[in-house]
């Protein structure tokens, strides 16, 4: 096992273990904290795969944006108004059967399929190629994303504003 493998397994373990705690812990703040670790683990794997831009964006968007909003929601409802929010597992048996089946299918596929393996060079930086792709080949999609965000903003404003 070389250093690269070791780092990979470290991040993979971090991701999976913390994801497990996200699901099982009863305290929702702990869940959020573990989710933070999950995001970090995924970002670490991205770096290992040479997707440096994706890793940083993962941190900025998921850690800096999405998770903090979730925490806000929990903190404002949980502590100030004294409502105890607990996560609870319901329908444990059907859910585990369903998830087990799905996992079985995925694992079977993983083992059965002949994946095409080709050694890839780890790019020095993905930043410039991504920028070029977004601005040239996928320019139309990029513009559409702008429209999509506009729609999302209008929708959010529409929901949030007072009658």
């Amino acid at each position, binding site marked *: 096992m070389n250093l690269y493998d070791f780092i990979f397994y470290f991040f993979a373990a971090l991701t999976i273990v913390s994801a497990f705690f996200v699901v099982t812990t009863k305290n929702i703040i702990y869940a959020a904290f573990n989710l933070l670790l999950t995001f970090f683990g995924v970002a670490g794997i991205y770096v290992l795969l040479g997707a440096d831009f994706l890793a940083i964006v993962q941190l900025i968007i998921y850690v800096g944006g999405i998770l903090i909003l979730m925490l806000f929601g929990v903190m404002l409802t949980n502590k100030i108004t004294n409502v105890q929010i607990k996560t609870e597992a319901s329908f444990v048996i059907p859910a585990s059967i369903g998830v087990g089946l799905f996992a079985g299918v995925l694992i079977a*596929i993983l083992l059965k399929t002949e994946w095409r393996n080709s050694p890839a060079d780890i790019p020095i930086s993905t930043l410039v190629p991504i920028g070029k792709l977004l601005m040239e*080949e996928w320019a*139309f999609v990029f513009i*559409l994303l702008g*429209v999509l965000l*506009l729609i999302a903003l*209008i*929708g959010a404003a*529409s*929901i949030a504003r007072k009658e």
Partner: protein
Amino acid sequence: MSQPLAYFFDSLYLIKPETSIIGFLVLILLYDLIFKKEKWLPYISLFGLVVTLFLIIEQYGYNKFAFQSSTNFGMMAIDPFGAFFKIIILLSSIIVILFSILSKELDVARDRMGEYYTLIFGMILGMFLMVSASDLILIYIAVELVSLSSFVLAGFLKNDSRSSEASLKYIIFGGVSSGIMLFGISILYGITGTTNLYEMNSLLQNFDSTNILMILTMILIFAGIGYKISAVPFHFWTPDVYEGAPVTITAYLSVASKAAGIVLLIRLIKSTFVSQKDTFGYWEMIPAFDWQGFLIIISILTMTIGNFSALWQSNVKRMLAYSSIAHAGYILAAIAVLSDQGLVGVMVYFIIYLLMNLGAFLIVIVIKNKINSEELEDYDGLGYRMPLVGVAFTIFLISLTGIPPTAGFIGKLYVFIALVDAKMLVLAVIMLLNSVVSLYYYVRILKHLYLNKPKAETTDIELSFSLKLFILVLAVPNIIFGLYFAPILEFVKTSLIILGI
């Protein structure tokens, strides 16, 4: 200029309709921001839709790719088939905006109507892209555009708890299903190494048997599409959302967004999985995934569960929701034929479905405006108090059942012929039996309208002239097209050109 950018600018003339929709979206937004006159917003929207309609008719004959890449395949397929469905979407949008002017339900939110029309335009843009997208990334963005706008629109009446509930349910189901779809898309990309459907077609040719990975992928992707067209295992949101959302939006979701989802499915099958077409128009499929068997199962489930659940509904909107699930089942049956004849069935069905379903919803809006209820019990005796509404509703419901001489019969007939020609008799019989079941609940509405005595003393309800005219405009074609449907067939046959094989 770099090559991809040159392709981009060369393709701009092909996306004039989409550009016009984006332009009017911004215009409505700015107008609402600056002038704050709600009164003119629907008329600006209608004007925008008419302009877009002209742009689509102008490019009706085109049959080429927009936004080509170096492999000569493009991100969007501009073809008559797409134009046909864009016209359907535009027509239903025009009708729905007219509904919105009439609907009293939206009066509580009159000061937010700017957002309403902007979001409708966002939805139209998304549906246009769903109709012509031939690239998985574009497909995903299109689906998200439609979903995001319709989430907010479904919960547009914020103070109505049912509307908020509808929106929340819609968001949760939508989020999960688009996540599943994205998972499928990522595996598909992993198998083929491309996101373009046409490129995928040539790469999939060497799959000579069904492949378990392919089955998983397609089922995952179908989750996203099935959610949009409310096909059966993904239909759970439909009744609640249709019941809770404003009627105008319910009508819109049941026609336009369903049409877009169906086209997406057809394009996915046609451009990715068809290896060639024989002389009778039957598609020869790449055996990587058994679309026919899959679609037959889904279609039988969808129409049966839709119809049987509709039997014991007491809310008319909810009943129409289940009925729209059933209709999605009929359409899926036509797709399952996997031939050009099946497509003719789908297209004829959609023109007629647009007329009859929107008509039925118009009646629901009119009645709701007058008696402020959608419950079946409150419909007692309304047929005598509002004669025109009663007659029109009868026409729409008979048409939805598919009994001659209404247009609904023609729609079902073409699906049926396609099924029989392809020797799929079991499916044809199941469809027939389902129509019989549907007759029961459609006629139950008529019973309440005419046979049940109203609980209290009532007076006649007067309708304005424009409203009467509007009802007639939707009701009369339902009869005319039932007797004389050559023009529809002509239009459908000329539109039956899908880019590719």
